[in-house]
């Protein structure tokens, strides 16, 4: 599914999504940028954008933007590209991954985990069959080993209520849209108040 359609879909379900503009040229990018920004190549053919050098973060001025724009496009090589996303930098918080998949037997399942090493290395995530109730969403968060980080183990208590909402929204989206086979909201950044989803992929 095209990036812009995927963003529209998750927003329709009330997911807080970090604004951005998919641009077609460097001039357009320069026009819309409110620094600091990130640029990302949007292509259905590129799964791991960061690994391929198709993402540049924390761009502070026009000069840097022009250079980064050119670089990420070059790194995309011959891939079919939808455009280059110019997105405001998200404020720092704790990175989460929220996703979903359609299981052959049980239908849509929703996934939750803390981003970075927690999911990638420690496989620390939880799953539930959709649709989920509030207590399922709460349990999903509490089930991961990294949960204390959200609950205030390192001083800050993050907005787990908002994340529970998000999980229920994603579950509803997956349940109601049978054509979706897989989806990732990755990363979602959670704050002491609220969260925002920074990137989305939806695979029909």
């Amino acid at each position, binding site marked *: 599914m095209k990036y812009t359609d995927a963003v529209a879909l998750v927003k329709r379900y009330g997911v807080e999504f970090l604004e951005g503009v998919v641009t077609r040229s460097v001039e357009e990018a320069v026009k819309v940028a409110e620094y600091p920004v990130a640029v990302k190549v949007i292509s259905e053919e590129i799964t791991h954008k960061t690994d391929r050098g198709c993402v540049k973060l924390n761009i502070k001025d026009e000069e840097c933007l022009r250079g980064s724009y050119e670089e990420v496009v070059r790194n995309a090589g011959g891939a079919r590209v939808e455009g280059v996303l110019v997105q405001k930098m998200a404020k720092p918080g704790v990175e989460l991954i929220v996703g979903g998949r359609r299981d052959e037997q049980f239908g849509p399942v929703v996934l939750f985990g803390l981003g970075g090493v927690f999911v990638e290395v420690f496989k620390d995530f939880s*799953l*539930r069959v959709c649709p989920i109730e509030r207590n399922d969403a709460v349990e999903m968060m509490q089930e991961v080993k990294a949960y204390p980080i959200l609950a205030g183990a390192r001083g800050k208590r993050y907005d787990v209520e908002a994340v529970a909402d998000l999980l229920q929204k994603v579950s509803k989206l997956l349940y109601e849209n049978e054509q979706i086979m897989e989806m990732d909201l990755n990363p979602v950044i959670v704050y002491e108040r609220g969260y925002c989803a920074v990137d989305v992929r939806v695979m029909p």
Partner: protein
Amino acid sequence: MNIDVLFDPKSVAVIGASRDPSKIGHVLLRNFIEGGFRGEVYPINPKTDEILGLKCYLSVKNVKEEVDLAVIAIPAKLVPEALRECGEKGVKGAIVISGGFSEVGNVELENELKEVCLKYDIACLGPNCMGVINPLTRVDSVFIPTYKMGRPKLGGVSFISQSGAIGGAVLDLMARQGFGMAKFVSYGNGAVIDETDLLKYMADDERTRTIVLYIEGVRRGREFFETLKGVTKRKPVVVLKGGKTAGGAVATKSHTGSLAGNAEVYEAVFKQCRATEARSLDEVFSFSKLFESQPFCSGERVGIVTNGGGLAVIAADSVEENGLKLAELSPESVERIRERVPAYVNVKNPLDLSGDAGAERFEVAINAMLEDENVDSIVVGVLFQTESIDSRVVSMIVGASNLKRKPIVVVCPGGEYAEVHSRILENCGVPTYTSSSSAVRALRKLVDYSKFVDKSRELKSS
């Protein structure tokens, strides 16, 4: 569909009954005759007149009396026709032991079997299964002679098994461990009746208090999910899922897809449905015997009493590891115990009664813990190897367990002597374990399930 007829038929036809003792058709018939089944039994075999003293019939249609259930053990290709005859005769249930259907790629033949059963409304188990054991009605279609595989006594655990082999091993172990069973069913390919139907049946079955489920996969995922979710509100379900590593990875494009494989989804399903997942056959036993024999208990404070200091320490570690809490004995119980044990016994939890303790000291301690409001469950560690321990401690523990006030589990590692006593305990409904880690892990599962039961009761009453 009348699933009940599989467990409680008034009459049974054994299609493929044989005079040859090495044949399944012979063992089946023998088990019905010698196993104490009180209904009528009709051997069906066109090639002979009499088997094991019973008149043999050409076809089920030649039996004049009513036939409730047909147990079928003939070559696969003949099965649909035999079922058709059953249908015309008005047979309500069938257990198809024969293999050679979808499990070997013969999908068409299985579809034919299914069509016949649906047409005549036959409750059909299998094909490729071991069928049913009901210790109450003595229906026994498991084609293994009793000298090779024991049959469990009557009790409250019902076992639903996709696999026949696992089913057989479990039955044999259950029989040996003195486990009480309500019903056993192996459903094989599940062409007509599958795991979801059987779950529903066991949920409604009055004799079944605990359900054990062995599956390798499910057919109707969504219905299974909804059913399981409903069933656990009524009875505990212990589930073992085989084939978690098999099945090959599905090609996925997303992060989520690569993380959430088939095994992970099953785990999520069990969690979400509040089924208790066992990771091995050992755990199946260890969990289900506790669910079956002891009262539910949502409290996490464990009292430990033993005649071995080392055992006390290890048991306390197990309590921590499993996220339970060591109970703090009330001043009253400390006082009560202190009055009746030697001064060198340090009265605290875990309570080491010391190596010279006999049944009397155990009695004092266990009774105090049963009374103590700070103690939710009791782990009794008995080293049967010591001089002063003998069979009296067993009767003492059984007496305490029979009160059904708090869950009591016994840890008794050891050889022959310990084993004999552990078997007596098991037979009297006290769950025993050879290690404190398995005992406390089981206790953890009981606590988790009990919490869920409490919560759903609260929701109901509010």
